[in-house]
């Protein structure tokens, strides 16, 4: 068994209104960052997972995303194994 560092990115689904992203976009523009074309705000969740392989760790975390970590109605997620802890 190894311990894997797994990163979960949860992001609003395309097309879903993201007022927080909009507010940040507006703030950036007012600071002169006119080049920023779009801002979407999600969240990152960092896990350390005991598993016998990176693939098993990723599979378990993906399952947990579907059940708990992301809301399928409004959110997408990506799971990345960042190496061993």
């Amino acid at each position, binding site marked *: 068994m190894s311990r894997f560092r797994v990163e979960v990115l949860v992001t609003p689904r395309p097309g*879903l*209104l993201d*007022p*927080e992203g909009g*507010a940040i976009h507006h703030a950036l523009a007012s600071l002169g960052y006119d080049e920023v074309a779009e801002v979407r705000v999600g969240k990152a969740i960092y896990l350390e997972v005991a598993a016998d392989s990176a693939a098993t760790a990723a599979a378990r975390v993906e399952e947990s995303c579907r059940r*708990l*970590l992301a*809301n399928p*109605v*409004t959110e997408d997620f990506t799971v990345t194994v960042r190496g061993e802890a």
Partner: protein
Amino acid sequence: MRIAVITFPGSNCDQDCHRSVEAAGATAVPVWHREISLGGTDAVIVPGGFAHGDYLRPGAIARFSPIMTPVVEFARAGRLVVGICNGFQILCEAGLLPGALLRNRSLRFQSHDCALRVERSDTPFTSRYREGQVIRMPLAHADGNYYADRGALEELESEGRVLFRYSDAEGESTEEANPNGSLNRIAGIVNEGGNVLGLMPHPDRAIDLALGSQDGLPLFESLVDSVHQRTPAQMAAAEGRALAGTAR
């Protein structure tokens, strides 16, 4: 008549719901979230608050509490379930109601009175209201912005499952009267079976005139009436529609 009021760690409105149920003439039964049975109660209220601190997403953790297994079974059996505010969020997370409640358009917590238009009076939750009646009650939430994808939204509308819509004092449901950005200005909906209600504003905070409004009381009274009158056939029909909805 006994109505279960679920308490999660972080529930804040369980006592308010308790008093509302009693004001409507029924007995409120407090049920702790770790229990695995509803104890033979006749209806269920999932109250407002911040269950599990609303950490991760409102309702996301609460839906896995042990009591939610019997609550889901109860709902699927066509029995009456009401989720208010955080309770609405929990019922959505639990898959008993479609859609999700996103962060308010203002990005702020909002706490103020709102006007609602009662869209139907022929449901177990609204029989004591008149169709088109404008009612006032407080809302208090950061995540009340109702969202569902286009298909689900069309279904809600075409099946007449939107029971409460934000409106102005005259009953016009305008965008100016939309406090939080909810699609179609939706404040409260029912499931396919018509036996599970979720709404964001707080009828439990509008049960006597000293509080500024008693427009919430008829909701609890309707619920009590409906439990008294509900026939096995009605429940079976609701169960059938609820199961069909789940399968979709």
